[in-house]
């Protein structure tokens, strides 16, 4: 049996609905026989008609309602149809969910699923990676699973956590990524994973870029270059220790992320390593981001806009030459 990243997300939600009647799924087109724009909730409304609910096109109210339900003891999972549309819910996520525990002492355990990242032909408004906006503000946990196993266990973890979680699932991995089976448990939340060991260079990445980085590492291995790939898993909290330990081994750091270049996860990782691991670095830390324009529709442009194995390899080679 082989299961995809997308199926893992559906399986996690099925399990959550079965095991915990505080859980409900709320979002556009998640219900009925349809099961969501990406089918991440396919079949769930049949089994749990009262707890898998279609909503109006009202992202602010969808998250607002989830917050209210969480205050009353529920464990809502919100599906945004695309991460890009969470801009409409951003105020509820940052200013209501993110501040509530600190202000009142009562946490709001909501999980907001963001189908994130670029895919061919999706264009400026169906391709965004928004983890950096949410991680910048206090009070939120931001998950960015890069594997089928993590997609499954981290979503279950997200719902278990008493604090609000923004769960960024990558649309490019939905079908591309497969595993043989689903684990019962994964690494603890907030712990990064050494996706591949190596002693020449550390690549820190997350979500779909972990897969591109692993492909790049493969290729570089053929040249005898041993690249260590760190998968952050959550960008907030960010596992600085694991990153530093890797840089201590390699002395070289390349950060790879799909979001826009100014600020964001790559900048944060480099800032931490430069600050706490300055003496560990044998060369200037580098980063690869998407370009600083909207995400293009045409595949020719899109494939050049996002980092990919090819330019990761090039950047890594240059860095290894220093």
């Amino acid at each position: 049996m082989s299961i995809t990243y997308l199926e893992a997300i559906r399986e996690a939600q099925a399990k959550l609905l079965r095991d915990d009647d505080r859980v409900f799924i709320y979002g556009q087109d998640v219900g009925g026989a349809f099961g969501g724009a990406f089918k991440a909730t396919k079949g769930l409304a049949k089994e749990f008609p009262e707890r898998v609910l279609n909503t109006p096109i009202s992202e602010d109210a969808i998250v607002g309602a989830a917050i209210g339900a969480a205050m009353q003891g529920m464990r809502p999972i919100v599906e945004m149809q695309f991460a890009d549309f969470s801009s409409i819910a951003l105020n509820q996520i940052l200013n209501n969910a993110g501040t509530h525990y600190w202000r009142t002492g009562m946490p709001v355990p909501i999980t907001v699923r963001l189908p994130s990242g670029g895919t061919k032909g999706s264009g400026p408004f169906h391709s965004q990676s928004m983890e950096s906006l949410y991680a910048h503000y206090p009070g939120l946990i931001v998950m960015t699973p890069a594997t089928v196993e993590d997609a499954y266990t981290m979503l279950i973890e997200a719902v278990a956590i008493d604090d609000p979680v923004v769960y960024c699932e990558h649309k490019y991995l939905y079908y591309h990524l497969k595993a043989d089976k689903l684990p019962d448990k994964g690494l603890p939340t907030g712990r990064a994973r050494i996706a591949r060991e190596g002693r020449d260079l550390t690549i820190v990445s997350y979500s779909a870029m972990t897969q591109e980085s692993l492909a790049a590492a493969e290729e570089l291995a053929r040249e005898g270059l041993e690249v260590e790939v760190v998968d952050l898993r959550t960008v907030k909290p960010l596992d600085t220790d694991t990153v530093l330990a890797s840089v201590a081994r390699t002395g070289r750091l390349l950060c790879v992320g799909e979001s826009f270049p100014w600020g964001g996860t790559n900048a944060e990782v480099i800032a931490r390593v430069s600050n706490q691991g300055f003496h560990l670095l044998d060369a200037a830390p580098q980063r690869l981001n998407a370009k600083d324009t909207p995400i293009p529709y045409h595949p020719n442009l899109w494939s050049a806009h996002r980092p990919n194995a090819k330019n990761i390899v090039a950047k890594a080679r240059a860095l290894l030459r220093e």
Partner: protein
Amino acid sequence: MLQTAQRTAKSKKKKDAPAPLAETAADKTAPPHERFLEAFRWMLLARTLEEKLVSLYRGGQITGGVYIGKGQEAVSVACGLFLEKGDIFAPLIRDQAGRSAFGEPLVDVTRTYLGSRLGPMRGRDGNIHRGHPRDNELAMISHLGAMVSVTVGTLMAKRFRGEKDFVGLTCIGEGGMQTGAFHEGMNIAAVEQVPLVVVATNNHYAYSTPNAREFACDDLRERAIGYGFEGYSVDGTDLTACLNVIGGAVKRARAGRPPQLVVASVLRLSGHGEHDDASYVSDEMKQQPFARDCLKFAEQTIIESNLVDRDTLVDWRKNAVMQVDEAVAAAQKEAVPEADKEDWCALSTRDLVDHVDEE
């Protein structure tokens, strides 16, 4: 848990108003004039408290803004008075009367305004940004309109859990009705068919902005039908009318009718906040019928129809002043927060707190 908390709130409430009247708060079948008198006392308490807050503010003893509900006490008290244990209340800027009637201890107000560490917000948030979510009094965020959908969610949760006969009530101003969040919240309430009452007070200004630059319909009540709400208007200066119309809306929502919108008309009898002299409010405005002071008018009714004698009114006033002074004195004695005693954690899950730089 919720219930204990609620009980504490209710018992605190007994402390605010003398027992006999407080009892009738629970007893929703109280004869009209008793309800009216209890409402009047909460209004009196709110007005007394807010006048005190204003003088503290003028005396430089309150940091940040002071936002009062002067002229809106009749609407507000009716919002709090008909809610029962297990109901949800999401008050807004000008709801001191409703908050007290719902069971918010007076000392929470003074603690929050004075930044006491013992207050519900522990000095982390201030003034009207306070609440007791565990006691079903939601703590508003500033962004207007945002609390409508949150209230809807609390009611969905109660339905999920199989609770019965509950309602939720939230308040908004005519300005806040123009936010996208308000629209989405109203619509989703109707789609989910939750027992929600939305009380909108048109006090004819959003800060300095008059109705003409806020909306262009003749009557905001007309928005109810477009959402699938039942809509009512009320003269917000008339306590009797407020009790009838808002009380009726709560009853209908509880009975399973569609969500209810009540639009009250008043004039804001203060600045937007105490920093604001409201010089933009014309004398002509102040001559309008909706500019009538609801507290004065209620007192007049009491006197004219002899509901209680003048000595009792004097006692009530004294009692209100006493309670307010107690609440202020108590909060003033208490410690304010200190940075090094804070744990500075925005997450309840301590081991998931992110550490940007090692200190």
